[in-house]
């Protein structure tokens, strides 16, 4: 009997260990539903999804970088510059699709540049992307002259307002497609496996005859692309491109990855769990909005919850034992 009880409690801790990210989401959901009757309305839910679609996409790029043991602090700036550039391109008469493609291509190029500095020149990712953060934010201000750029209402804002099957926001669908691609790449392709392996032990991967630098450059390039796409999505919600978008967004993206169980030292990372991380952040933000908590206390509470959630993971993750 006694051993049965022990087994039972063991399996409960096992369960918590395995699904702690999801449990956290469930707790947030329940709190939201209890606190506010408005929460569980389609309008509110789709609002949240529109609002956080960009962060989801940005977090996917961040996840790959973190999986290699790096970090990308420049994503917020990419998002701002991406929104400015896509607005400029559209206003200069470019079609919607060419404008978006050109925009994300530029993001890809800048990201590649960061990657080359990190991989080839062995500069710390923190420094490279921090410099990139100010460079690109500065570029966004220069390009826009510091003021928001409006676009005609029938162009990019269509993207933000369109729905699939008359109800599901297009932005949500877009974000889900990106997540699905990343989940597949991380779990099922040699690229994903090598990216995780690089984060686990770069030396070993290099000595196994794999061109680690290619993969390192690639993840920063992809992160640049995702963050710029995030800029397009942000512009599509308002129809405006502005250099003020995405202030502090890098921290939200990192937080989403970490809540999703990714280790900042690399080697771990799950796309789906990172989405859960985004959702946790989204729910925290939403519930405080519904309760009309002012924005300064919101930041404090958000920070505390991030600490709490990571602590929970540390406490529930299996302890190392020496045999």
């Amino acid at each position, binding site marked *: 009997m006694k051993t049965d009880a022990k087994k039972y409690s063991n399996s409960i801790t096992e369960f918590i260990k395995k699904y702690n990210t999801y449990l956290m989401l469930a707790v947030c959901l329940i709190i939201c539903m209890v606190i506010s009757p408005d929460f569980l309305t389609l309008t509110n839910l789709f609002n949240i999804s529109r609002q956080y679609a960009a962060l989801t996409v940005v977090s996917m790029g961040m996840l790959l970088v973190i999986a290699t043991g790096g970090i990308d602090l420049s994503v917020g700036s990419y998002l701002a510059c991406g929104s400015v550039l896509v607005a400029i391109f559209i206003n200069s008469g470019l079609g919607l699709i060419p404008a978006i493609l050109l925009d994300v291509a530029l993001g890809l190029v800048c990201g590649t540049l960061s990657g080359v500095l990190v991989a080839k020149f062995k500069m710390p990712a923190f420094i490279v992307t921090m410099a990139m953060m100010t460079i690109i934010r500065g570029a966004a201000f220069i390009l826009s002259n510091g003021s928001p750029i409006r676009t005609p209402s029938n162009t990019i804002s269509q993207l933000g307002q369109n729905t699939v099957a008359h109800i599901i926001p297009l932005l949500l669908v877009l974000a889900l497609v990106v997540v699905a691609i990343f989940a597949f790449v991380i779990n099922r*392709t040699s690229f994903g496996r*090598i990216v*995780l392996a690089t984060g686990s*032990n770069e030396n*070993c991967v290099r000595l*196994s005859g794999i061109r680690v630098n290619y993969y390192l450059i690639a993840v920063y390039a992809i992160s640049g692309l995702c963050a710029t796409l995030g800029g397009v999505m942000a512009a599509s919600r308002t129809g405006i491109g502005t250099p003020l978008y995405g202030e502090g967004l890098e921290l939200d993206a990192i937080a989403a990855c970490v809540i999703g169980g990714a280790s900042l030292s690399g080697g771990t990372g799950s796309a789906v769990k990172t989405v859960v991380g985004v959702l946790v952040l989204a729910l925290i933000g939403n519930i405080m909005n519904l309760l009309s908590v002012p924005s300064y206390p919101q930041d404090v509470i958000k920070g505390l919850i991030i600490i709490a959630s990571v602590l929970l993971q540390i406490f529930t993750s299996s302890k190392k034992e020496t045999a």
Partner: protein
Amino acid sequence: MGSEYLVEMENISKRFSGVKALDNMNFKLGKGEIHALIGENGAGKSTLMNILAGAFPSDEGTIKIDGKIRKISSPKVSRELGISVIHQELMLAPHLTVAENIFIDRLSSKGGVINWKKLKQDAKDILTKLGFGDIDPNARIMDLSVAYQQVVEICKSLSRNVKILVLDEPTAVLTFNEIQKLFVLLRNIRDQGMGVIYISHRLEEIFELCDKITVMKDGCYIGDYDTKNISKDELIEKMVGRELTTLFPKRNAEIGDIVLEVKNLNAGRMVKNISFNIRKGEVVGFSGLVGAGRTETMRAIFGADKIDSGTITYFGKEVVFKSPYEAVKNGIGFLPEDRKQQGILLDMPIRNNVTLTALKKVTKASVIRQKADKGLAESILKEVSAKYHALSDKVSSLSGGNQQKVALSKWLAADCKLMILDEPTRGVDVGAKSEIYKIINDLAESGIAVIMISSEMEEILNMSDRVYVMRRGSITGELPKEDLQDVNIMKLCVGE
């Protein structure tokens, strides 16, 4: 005064999440005794020593230190009882100097101000007393060889009234004459009435150094023996519980054409004018002291480090591999000496490790075919008789021997034509050692050229068809099979 034993551990049992690590284990260390503790990897040696060091308590059993029953509830208590454990992973601050490290916990005597002159003199005194006066107290730890780092670690313990010194595989990274120096040091300690517990897989050293031997197996006490009254074969039998017909299996490899010919290779400070060759099906040993430039030579050939000058001819074609990628693409495999840092992905599943070098084989348009991936990993792990629970388990959950087999598997998956093995059996127990030798033989028999760097004399003597000896970055001699004797190798190593 007190008992004749320094340490008496009686009926010690310990469980880890239900798994029994120690079961009624007994261990006694006498005064003025060097006592070997041996057993296969996973036998529970480290667990027993961790209990002695206060890392965690035992579930059952008593510990007497100097005849008095003690409860070692924390590392601090253990230290106060005069116990010091020197781990394989050294506990030194790499950026600080030798003197600072030795006196790390009492750098200052008055009001937090360090008297540098005195500190350095004290360090110098301790080092000189132990016969290592050539170590500069001002040198930074990171600039010292691993062997000297270990000496510093021992000095650090001895400078604080240690009575019981525990050494866990201290010679794994040392070379012949460094080992001899360490032995002099340990005998010295013994003669002063202290006790030394010596954990090692190297039986020849145990017979040379130790007075008594305690054997353990699967967490149980097998027995203790006077070194004088037991033979090596008996001991091995007690350790593995079965008779090992021979540690070094026979090989029937046909030696063919030259695979690799290196001429006048220079690379950095450690590789000077190296020339050697290796043939198909041949096992060529590289002997030498640690820091002789063997690893550096192989890294340069493998494209991991830059080559300054010289030619490398591989299958008749002159080549320069600019990166490991190019070397691997051309069928060269390299098993690094530092398994955890370079050889394996500790936190990754076993499966991801094995097929890392062969992802092309198991992917289609870079999408991993799960079945092929799993099948390849399983078949190779079976080939090397690795023991594991599930392919998805992390490599860190395996014993040292099985980790090494996983590291080897990676190269078996890559279909190499030339395999460079750097200390292939470091930190591996006797049973797994023999199995690794068998794998090496299989490789040679299938026509692969094998370069084996090894600091273990027995391994070099028994496994090699030919041996090159290196000293201070140069090859000092080549010994054909008929001249393979330890004296010949030793002479070339030390440059007589």
